């Protein structure tokens, strides 16, 4: 899938997103996303039945009668996307790059969030911060964000997740939902993720490729990692080599899942061969049921 295909695809996203948001997210938005809760609304005269804990003593003493604080649910959430655009994400062995799938997912989610009147913001990172899009409302903003996302030419190659998460935490002044889209071939960042998870609802979406866990049986190749320059030589046709490869990456994946669970971060894996809409629907369905 080249960029033109992706653009064509994204044209349909508002439609798909509406299905996502109206059909699934809209009514149950708060139940799908662990809402950060309440925001202060106003102070009114105490009415019987009000929780005594919410009596605003300062106001009460000034006015002579008891006043109590009222709260309302936070309506305008910040929906924040943390997108890994490192060199490894720009690869892909199938129909598309991992980045294409990631962009598609990001676009879907942001349109859905926009439908819900949430502010959509984003941060692109590699081994540096590539671009920051401040949270804003409206479909136009989202459209511009998607445009930026597709035309971004990353300067760095690595994937410093810790840096990305730390920056996101600084940028997100209000509590919100943070979706991390990456292949998680990253370095560390677990400590930062724990911190972020304490304040925000964090969802880690891992974008994978079919060759990620299964080496194809071919001849002797010299593979080089585009981020680190690590070179791997071997005959991919041999059983031993393929087994070592699968074992290594499955162990890495297991570790990743365990780390997410430990920090009560929801994790989702989307393969480049998968349909992101289906995956997201299934994911939210699962989440709602909890």
């Amino acid at each position, binding site marked *: 899938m080249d960029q033109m295909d992706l653009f064509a695809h994204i044209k349909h996203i508002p439609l798909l997103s509406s299905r996502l948001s109206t059909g699934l997210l809209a009514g149950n938005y708060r139940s799908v996303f662990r809402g950060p809760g309440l925001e202060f609304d106003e102070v009114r005269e105490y009415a019987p039945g009000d929780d005594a804990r919410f009596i605003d003593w300062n106001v009460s003493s000034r006015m002579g009668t008891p006043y109590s604080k009222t709260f309302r649910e936070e309506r305008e959430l910040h929906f924040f996307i943390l997108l890994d655009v490192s060199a490894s994400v720009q690869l892909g062995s199938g129909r598309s790059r991992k980045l294409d799938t990631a962009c598609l997912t990001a676009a879907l989610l942001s349109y859905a969030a926009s439908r819900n009147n949430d502010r959509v913001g984003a941060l692109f990172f590699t081994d540096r911060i590539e671009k920051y899009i401040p949270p804003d409302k409206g479909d136009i903003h989202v459209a511009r964000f998607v445009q930026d996302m597709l035309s971004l030419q990353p300067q760095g190659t690595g994937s410093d997740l810790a840096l990305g998460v730390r920056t996101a935490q600084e940028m997100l002044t209000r509590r919100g939902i943070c979706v991390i889209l990456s292949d998680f071939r990253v370095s560390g960042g677990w400590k930062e993720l724990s911190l972020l998870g304490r304040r925000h609802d964090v969802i880690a979406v891992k974008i994978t490729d079919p060759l990620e866990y299964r080496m194809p049986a071919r001849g002797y190749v010299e*593979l080089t990692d585009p981020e680190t*320059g690590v070179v791997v030589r071997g005959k991919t046709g041999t059983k031993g080599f393929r087994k070592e490869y699968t074992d290594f990456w499955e162990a890495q994946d297991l570790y990743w899942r365990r780390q997410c669970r430990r920090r009560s971060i929801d994790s989702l894996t989307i393969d480049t061969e998968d349909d992101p809409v289906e995956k997201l629907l299934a994911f939210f369905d699962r989440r709602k049921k909890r």
Partner: protein
Amino acid sequence: MYSFETPEYLFLLFLLPVAVFFRHFWKKRGGRIPFAVSLWNREYFQPGNSLAGVIAFLSHVSFWCSLGCIIIALAGPGIVRHRKVFLSRGLDMMIVLDLSPSMAAQDFAPDNRFESARQVIKDLVQRRENDPIGLVTFGLEAALRIPPTVDYDMVLQRLEDLRILEMGDGTAIGMGIAVACLHLQQSTAGEKVIVLITDGENNAGAILPEAAAELAAGLGIRVYAIGIGSEGEVPLEYTDPATGKTYRGQFVSGFDEELLVAVAERTGGKYFSSSSQGTLEAVIRTIDSMESIEKRVSIQTETEEKYRTWIAASLGCFLLWFFLSRLVLKEVW
């Protein structure tokens, strides 16, 4: 000695490590497939050592060897040999050896007179470079064993084949000298020499030693006469080659010194007497040094070209590389 016709080409070998660097170690080299195999700055996938790795190493080695061999072949390798070519004719030497039974007398260490004589003749042959040497033996009669030749291997071979008494029981010194003279007659050599080794008195043959000496003198041949044997009674032991019977006994030795002196002096040669292995050696050395003539020699340089070996090696390495890379590893080019 290994040498190169155009060693300038060998400088290309310095480019080899450069090419190896660019091909295998340069950070920006091509031929690699970008593929995420590592966590950024963390663990990375590294397969263990495998047979494929060894084969790949071998294939790379053969590739670079092939290239190296081409460069060496380009430099025109060859083995240089220097060959001595004699421009002047050496002297002709005929050795006349007594094979009478008395040569079996054991007064010469370690074996007997005959073996000692054979040993010193061998030494003499091996010290000569381009002087034809022939061999005449005598007993009751005399015969040519090998005509004067520089084919020293053959001379030594014939010398080895000699047996005591095979020319009959007798001492035909005159005949020996005469036969030697006959075969030196055609020689174009400037100097002709007969080395006579005997331990007895002339007691056989139709030609007297004096007449033979006359003949030699007429042909310009010098005779060096060596009388061997110690005085007194000596034990002897020999096997008759005709009957295979072994004879043992005591024997009073003695040779006709006057005759030998006369023969030597008549021909302008010299007489030596020798009573032991050591003195015999000394005598032969003396003759050897007396009879060395000036040699004119040119050194010829011959180069045996070796480039084909290197090309063949290169081709072999190349085919090995191709086989390993293309057919065994199925490497992506």
